[in-house]
Every structure is written in structure tokens, then in C-alpha cells.
């Protein structure tokens, strides 16, 4: 026991403190196993993988022994891969923009209705976020197809005369990505909107603000941080999305995750696949660091500004 280490003159206070130290020490012992496991699950596989990206593929799933950066120079000089990086970024940015435009008003609406209806709708959104993706894609495939509901509705309304291709192109992938991130963004932004005190909006109304003015000048600025977080999250999810681009792009929309899977499973080109993966992870991390730096600068700038009474 820790108590025995303390001399006879120890005060009651220090003996309590050492008791707490001993118990904290015991709790800390629990950490060893999870830490060791997480570290080995993270570091060992990643290390072999990144090492792989510095070796040339010599066919049959083998890589040569000599160190080379050829895989990286190929990715960064070949127009095909640069286009894929651009395509992934562009689609992710568009999807993020649309997803936030849909998700924030939805979260705001759900926060304002409360009661069993809100619970029911949140449950539906949660289900949409958690039910396995292929089922969603199957549904979207039926809805967006040439004889799907969307095309038939547009034709019935005489907006179009022949079916518009909504699948196997960027539009299909975009819809898939939005469908993928919106439910998670609604849940995340719902938590944000809930923390905004209702009376702020009421005060704006009393001072004569319209609904729109109160929404854009009170609610949106209050939720700015949360919205930015949602954008980053959505962007990251889209950059890594694999199933939607593959199914709804029909093999014609080549984003980085689709190419990674093709290189590794179809072509067994592990070196290039590993290099593409590394490029993707680093690219996303850099984007996040850039956003983080921007936020930090904003916070600091605001802190410098003199306080208004």
C-alpha cells in the first residue's frame, strides 16, 4: 500500500492524496493493453504499406527490392492521376456544399419542432446514416435510372422530352455522395443548433427581424463553428467515399478511392496502389490542417479585437 511509504509524521491530507495517486496508478495500468493493441493495429500495417509505395511493381503482386520514388513521380506527373485528384476534390467540394445547404435547415427545423415527431424523424435519419450503403445505392439506382421515378416525373411534367442520364456520370456520384453525408451532418448540426438559446431568435423577432433575417443573422453566425466542422467532416467523408462513386459512376467516374481499389484488386499493382493511398491520406490531412490554421487565425484575430461592453 502507498500509505506505508509515508513516514509517521504524514498529515491526514497527504495520506488522502497518496491514496488517490495509488488509485490513479491502478487505473492507468488499464491503459497498457488498449494502447499496445491500437498502436500495433495502426503502425505495423501502415508501415509495411507505406514502405511498399517506395518500391516498383514487378508483376505477380511482387515488388522490387530497390528504393524508388517512381510511383509518386508517376502519380504527380501523369495527367490521368492528376485529373483523378481534381475530380475527387471537385466532387467532394460540390457534395459538401449541397449537403450543408440541405442539412443545416433540416437540423434547424428538427430542433424547433421537438416532441415525438422530431424523435421519429431523427430515428429515420439515424437509420439512413447507419444502414449499410449498398442498399441505399440500390434504391438510388432504381430512382435515377432511365425509366426511374425522377425521369418519369420530369417527362410527365414535360420538363424533358427524353430521359436524362442521371447514372454513370458525375451527377449520379454527386447525388450518392450527398445521400451518404447528409444524415450524419443533420445529426451533428442538430446537436449544434440545440445549444443555441431560443430567446436569441425571439429577441430578433421582437426587434422586427423577419424569419429569414433571424435565421441568417442570428442562427447561422451562432452555428458558424459547427457548420465549418460539418463541412470538414463531409469533405473528408466524400474524399474517402468508395462505394457511391463505384456504383453510381458505373466505372466512368474515377475518383482516388475507386482507382486505389482498381490498382490493388484488379491490377495487383500494390506499389502504385499504396502510393495513391498515401497521396490521398496526405492530401486530406493537408486540407484539414489548412482549415485548422484558418480557424486558429480567426480565433486569435477575434481575441485581439477589443471587447464590446
Amino acid at each position, binding site marked *: 500500500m502507498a500509505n506505508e511509504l509515508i513516514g509517521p509524521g504524514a498529515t491526514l491530507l497527504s495520506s488522502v492524496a497518496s491514496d488517490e495517486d495509488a488509485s490513479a496508478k491502478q487505473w492507468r495500468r*488499464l491503459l497498457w493493453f488498449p494502447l499496445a*493493441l491500437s498502436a500495433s493495429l495502426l503502425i505495423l500495417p501502415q508501415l509495411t504499406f507505406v514502405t511498399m509505395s517506395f518500391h516498383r511493381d514487378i508483376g505477380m503482386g511482387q515488388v522490387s527490392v530497390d528504393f524508388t520514388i517512381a510511383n509518386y513521380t508517376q502519380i504527380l506527373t501523369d495527367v490521368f492521376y492528376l485529373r483523378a485528384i481534381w475530380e475527387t476534390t471537385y466532387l467532394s467540394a460540390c457534395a459538401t456544399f449541397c449537403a450543408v445547404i440541405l442539412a443545416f435547415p433540416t437540423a434547424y427545423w428538427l430542433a424547433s419542432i421537438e416532441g415525438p415527431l422530431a424523435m421519429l424523424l431523427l*430515428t429515420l435519419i439515424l437509420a*439512413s446514416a447507419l*444502414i449499410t450503403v449498398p442498399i441505399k445505392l*440500390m434504391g438510388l439506382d432504381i430512382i435515377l435510372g432511365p425509366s426511374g421515378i425522377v425521369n418519369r416525373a420530369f417527362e410527365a411534367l414535360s420538363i424533358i422530352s427524353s430521359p436524362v442520364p442521371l447514372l454513370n456520370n458525375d451527377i449520379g456520384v454527386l447525388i450518392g455522395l450527398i445521400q451518404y453525408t447528409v444524415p450524419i451532418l443533420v445529426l451533428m448540426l442538430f446537436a449544434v443548433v440545440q445549444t443555441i438559446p431560443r430567446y436569441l431568435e425571439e429577441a430578433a423577432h421582437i426587434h422586427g427581424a423577419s424569419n429569414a433575417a433571424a435565421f441568417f443573422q442570428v442562427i447561422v453566425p451562432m452555428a458558424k463553428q459547427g457548420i465549418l466542422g460539418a463541412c470538414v467532416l463531409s469533405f473528408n467523408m466524400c474524399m*474517402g467515399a468508395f462505394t457511391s462513386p463505384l456504383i453510381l459512376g458505373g466505372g466512368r467516374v474515377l475518383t482516388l478511392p475507386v482507382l486505389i*481499389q482498381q490498382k490493388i484488386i484488379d491490377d495487383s499493382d500494390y506499389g502504385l496502389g499504396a502510393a495513391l493511398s498515401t497521396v490521398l491520406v496526405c492530401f486530406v490531412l493537408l486540407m484539414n490542417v489548412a482549415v485548422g490554421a484558418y480557424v486558429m487565425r480567426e480565433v486569435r484575430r477575434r481575441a485581439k479585437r477589443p471587447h464590446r461592453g
Partner: protein
Amino acid sequence: MPLRTTTVIGILTILFLVSPFVVVAGASLDTGNAFQIRFPPHGLSLARYAELQPRYFYAFRTSLVLGVSTATLATAIGLMAALGAMRGRLIAAETLLSFFRMPLQIPFVVTGAVYLQFYYQLVATTGFNPMSSLLGLLLAHLFIVLPYTVSAIAAVVPRTNISLEEAAETLGATKWTTFWRVTFPMLRPALLAGAFYAFIISFGDVPVSLFLVTPANMTLPVQIFQDMRFDFQPSILAVSTLVSIISMVLIVGIQKLTGLDMVLPPNQRPN
């Protein structure tokens, strides 16, 4: 009351989110000839449920075993990590937790590729092949779900009242009795929520598992995914509807057990 724009967007968004499931379920009830998909269905029948191939049952069993083992292990490990980090009075507890969240920075498809590659190396150097059993999938799934269980439990540990545990020990309870009778019940909702997330992510995963499945260890989502691409038969609609119903029951069940607050996702989500 005038209809507000936010309300209209909200209703349309929820319709948009729910529509794929409604369409799949509706089309699964169609009578029609075997290879045509029609929504709305022209007639109602359960024919597509009668022609379910046995491979879906095998895949379902694999996914279930995998999901339950992943959830159990991840919850136990998450509990250890959360208690150690939050109760150990560490200065760097937050940094430690963000270490456990690191897998969230890696896209799923990359994790799949990384583990496939790692297992090949393992076979080449030691002769041991984790992919010959469920272990291969289990390790990769543990990797992707641990951030969820750790975060879900760590968020609740500081809210528990440690003096209740001290009281139990003062009154003569052993460490184990205190843990099972005092600590564990206080953390139960968090543990359930963590296990639920681990299960549903493992059970529904495609991008990681796609790299690691073998004909003997085929998971249900990957089976559905592959059949959708290469061998489309209307019975997939029936399987998908059943999976949606099972997931929905699980989601509602866990909400009843722990409350909606616990089930809303932690703010960090995967790619």
C-alpha cells in the same frame, strides 16, 4: 402558420434520405417476371422472398458472428482505454484519446488495402494467414470501430460519480464487486451505445471487408455489393429489405434502452 423555407427543405431532405429504402422495399414486393425491377410495384407478392439463395444466409451468419465479436472486443478494450485515460489523472488524457481516434483519419478503402497488404506480408514472413479464418476481418474491423467505443465511453466516464465507488470500497466491497455492482451499471448506457456503433459499422462495412473476404468468409454487405455489380437478381431486393428491417429494429431497440442522446453519433465520423 406560413410554411417556412427551412421546413420545406427539412421535409424534402428527409424524403430524399428515406426514398431509397422505400423504393427497394416496394420493388421487392413486385410480382413481375424475374429480372425486371419496377417501382411502384405492379402487384404484391412475396415471390422474391421465397427464392432467397442459401449464400445470403451463410453471409448473414458470418456478418452476425463478426459484428458481435467485433462489438464485444471493441467495447471491452474501449472501456479499459476510457477508464485508464479519464481516471488515471493524466495530463495528456486528451492527446491520448486523440491517438485512439487516429484511425478516423484514414479512409476505409485505404484501411482495406493496408490490411490486405499486411496479411500478405505476414503470410510471406511467418506463414500465418489471418484471412484463412475470420481473424483477418476481425482485426481490421476492430481497427475501424475502436475510435467509436473509446469516444462513446470516455465521454461518459467523467460524468460518473467516483465517490460512489469509494463508498462501496469503504463499506468493504472488493475491487471486482465494486466494478460490477457500481461502476459497470453507471456506464451501461455508454457501453451499450459503443457496442451498438461497433456492431452496426462492422455489420454494414463494405470498403474494408471487400479487400479481405474469401469465399468461405463472405460478409452480407459485400455479397449484396458484388451481386449488385456482377450478378443482379431481384432476390437481392428482398435480402436488402430484410437487412433494413433488422437494422431498424436494432436502432429503435437501442434507443429504447439508452435514450436518443446516447445513440446520436459522436462528432467524429469516419471517411
